[in-house]
């Protein structure tokens, strides 16, 4: 049986070969990331950051935003890349070959997300570096390492949502609106662009249930020195528990949805 590790590194190999064969597109993906960072730089003078300072303990809204946006590049990958792979395989007919092969569907999805996340890192790095440049006064190596570790854990937990979205594609074929809804909700409920403390309490509680919230909060805390939503030990624990619970749920949902999808066949009807 093909191992998850093999599926992972072969998917990276496949992705990079394909990526570098669309050279102009590849170049512009990197340039876009740099461009957003540049615009943020220009916009930095336009914000009143007093309120932000009171709420999160840092007046550096530009860095706050940049880390949110760089996080978004991985969030999109974690949530959508596997579903996109399945959508493309469904329309091309490749899904039949894939699903007649012997490997765990769950690990195939997660390996593909991880391989795509490696690819997204290329676009994450320039943005992240701009963010680091804005926070040079609070920056430590430990801070960056812990921030990135929290990000990885958060993305791993979010990938479980991605696995569920991918399996939903098998069952419902077209799930772009479902994805769009959750993607947008995640952006506003997790403090990606505005501090979570600004939201009404019921929405804040909803935000705590999502792994991005703690991942992003800890990234900002460790890199920018912001005040965390709760003691960081609790945030680490919450992230680990979320990863565990979502992995179990994703495994179950993937098996269940594949089984249902096979009643009608794995193809666009």
């Amino acid at each position, binding site marked *: *049986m*093909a191992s998850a590790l*093999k*599926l992972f590194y*072969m*998917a990276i*190999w*496949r992705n990079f*070969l*394909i990526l570098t*064969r*669309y050279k102009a597109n590849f170049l512009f993906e990197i340039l876009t990331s740099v461009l957003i960072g540049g615009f943020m730089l220009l916009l930095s003078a336009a914000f009143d950051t007093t309120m932000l300072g009171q709420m999160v303990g840092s007046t550096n809204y530009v860095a706050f935003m940049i880390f949110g946006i760089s996080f978004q590049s991985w969030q999109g990958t974690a949530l959508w890349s596997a579903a996109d792979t399945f959508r493309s395989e469904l*329309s*091309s*007919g*490749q899904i*039949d*070959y*894939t*699903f*007649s*092969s*012997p*490997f765990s569907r769950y690990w195939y999805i997660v390996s593909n997300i991880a391989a795509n996340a490696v690819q997204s890192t290329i676009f994450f790095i320039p943005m992240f570096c701009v963010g680091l440049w804005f926070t040079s006064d609070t920056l430590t190596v430990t801070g960056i390492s812990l921030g990135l570790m929290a990000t990885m854990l958060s993305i791993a937990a979010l990938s479980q949502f991605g696995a569920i979205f991918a399996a939903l594609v098998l069952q419902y074929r077209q799930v772009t609106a479902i994805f769009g809804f959750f993607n947008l909700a995640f952006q506003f409920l997790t403090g990606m662009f505005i501090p979570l403390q600004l939201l009404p309490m019921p929405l804040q509680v909803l935000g705590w249930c999502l792994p991005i919230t703690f991942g992003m909060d800890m990234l900002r805390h460790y890199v920018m020195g912001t005040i965390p939503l709760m003691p960081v030990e609790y945030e680490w624990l919450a992230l680990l528990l979320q990863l565990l619970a979502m992995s179990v749920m994703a495994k179950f949902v993937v098996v269940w949805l594949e*089984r249902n999808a*096979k*009643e*009608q*066949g*794995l*193809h666009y009807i």
Partner: protein
Amino acid sequence: MFAISCKGLVKEYKTQKLVRALDDITFDVAEGEIFGLLGPNGAGKTTLVKILATLLRPTQGSAEVGGHDIAKEEDMVRRVIGYAGQDSERSAYFRLTVRENLMYFSHALRDVPVKTAKERIESIVSAIGFEERLDKHFIALSGGEKQLVIVIRAIVHEPKVCFLDEPSRSLDPLTAKRVRGFLKSYASEKGMTICLTTHNMKEAEEICDRIAFINRGRLQFIGTPEEFKGVVTVKEVVEIANFEIDKVIEERLLAIQGVSNVTKSDGNIRIYCDDAFGVLKNVFDFLGDIGIKAHVSMIEPTLEDAFAVFVSNDSAEGK
């Protein structure tokens, strides 16, 4: 042990109304056998292959592939099968070369070690005469070449049982013949069982040890290609070349004494009978009556004739 064993397979699709795509399919395929599934479009051949390849769930009945139950041991079944579906045009990575595609699928998804995969790919493509395409991007290949890549992908991990859904579709006649020859010798050398669907009677006759004829979801015949020809109770065929007929002419031809069936194929009319000499004069008279000059000849019935008569008889019964 059989390589494939089906017992009472039924598949129903729930759309606006319940559609029964397969109805009580039972058959066995021996190890190492090349087994052909024949039938007209929509007969249920692809549905059957997809069920056996664990891509669809049967509504009723059971089946084993390579000794493993397709419902209870899906993963074990997937370890012993190869599969090439009909959607070959886009079902590999466009911007990877043929070699890279085959490496990815065989190593990542089928666990073939890199070195072994490389050797097998080289060996198969040289046997088929496809070496010069190996480093071309998949997107740059013709439809037939893409089809060939998909067939190679299905066998490169040397499965015990291989399902090929219309493997020679889009191949030119010469390549199709070469591929058929290769598949036959490859299956014999590796002890691989092949279950293929086809409309191509020549293909069925050339490589299948046995064939099953499916129409409207029902298994109507199972046996050797020779037996299939023999089941059709016609001994001779009169062909009228390049001749279009409507329903009225078809009925008048059927009314000629001794004619058991009339079919249309590639612009030609084939009249099935027991005594072609006896029928020939009446056919000439009839053509003269309606003022048509056409080339009429007597030919030996082929597997294609058996297929046409089977479908034609079944449609008549269905009505």
